[in-house]
């Protein structure tokens, strides 16, 4: 039963974690915004508006993912395992992670439509590949 629960969680998480693959605060890097993407002041303003719009919910989602995972860990460490509670904890993790993916994807989509094709391609090239959340190593840390 425990193995089945684990497989269910892995499948759910894998399916929900398709998009976006990486996320970093590129809009705060002046080199990226002005030199590499050549964003107009209007675009910068709109991008920042999108971030401000999603920020509060993302903070909540981050907390919910963390809390649900702690809850799941607690259920796994409980002896004997209460399968009903553990299943509920799994559902909570899946829902939280799903919300995270959905929210990040929606925010990314709103940003994408503000960028032209060239800017989007350029941003794709700047995507960090190894450390999630980290900006590309060649970029100077700016805000």
């Amino acid at each position: 039963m425990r193995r089945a629960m684990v497989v269910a969680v892995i499948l759910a998480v894998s399916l929900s974690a398709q998009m976006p693959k990486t996320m970093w605060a590129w809009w705060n890097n002046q080199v990226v915004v002005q030199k590499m993407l050549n964003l107009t002041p209007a675009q910068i303003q709109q991008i920042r508006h999108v971030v401000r719009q999603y920020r509060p919910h993302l903070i909540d989602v981050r907390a919910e993912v963390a809390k649900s995972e702690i809850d799941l860990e607690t259920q796994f460490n409980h002896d004997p395992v209460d399968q009903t509670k553990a299943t509920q904890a799994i559902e909570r993790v899946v829902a939280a992670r799903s919300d995270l993916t959905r929210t990040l994807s929606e925010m990314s989509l709103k940003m994408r439509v503000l960028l032209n094709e060239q800017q989007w391609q350029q941003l794709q090239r700047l995507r960090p590949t190894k450390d999630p959340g980290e900006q590309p190593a060649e970029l100077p840390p700016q805000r």
Partner: protein
Amino acid sequence: MKHWTEKDFTEWMYGLKEEDPHVAGCAECRGELERLKLERGRTIALPEVSHDFLASQRRSIYQRLGKPISNWHPMRWGISVAALVVVILSVTLNTWKSTPAISDEQLFSDLATMEQSNEPKAIAPIHKFFEE
């Protein structure tokens, strides 16, 4: 008889001791007693207040009774404003302190880490068996 001590004089001052034959016959004790009587009389004597002073005081009171009571006082407003400023500052500072400050970099770094992690921490030990 012995001369009166300081304790004897104090008790006499508070009415706890009567004058005795020694005081009546001893010039030294009698003198001290008289001095203390004078001192006490001076202390408890009412101050002399002239009739004119009392009359002017009455006139002043009657005059003020006829006027409307004014609550205005510059210090009153000053204290109220200062209290209001303290309340606003404390509320503002409290709100500012209680708001968790998180940068975009930190927030999106955390989110990306969560997004990229393949499984919850709880199942990681069991997930390893599948990899092996």
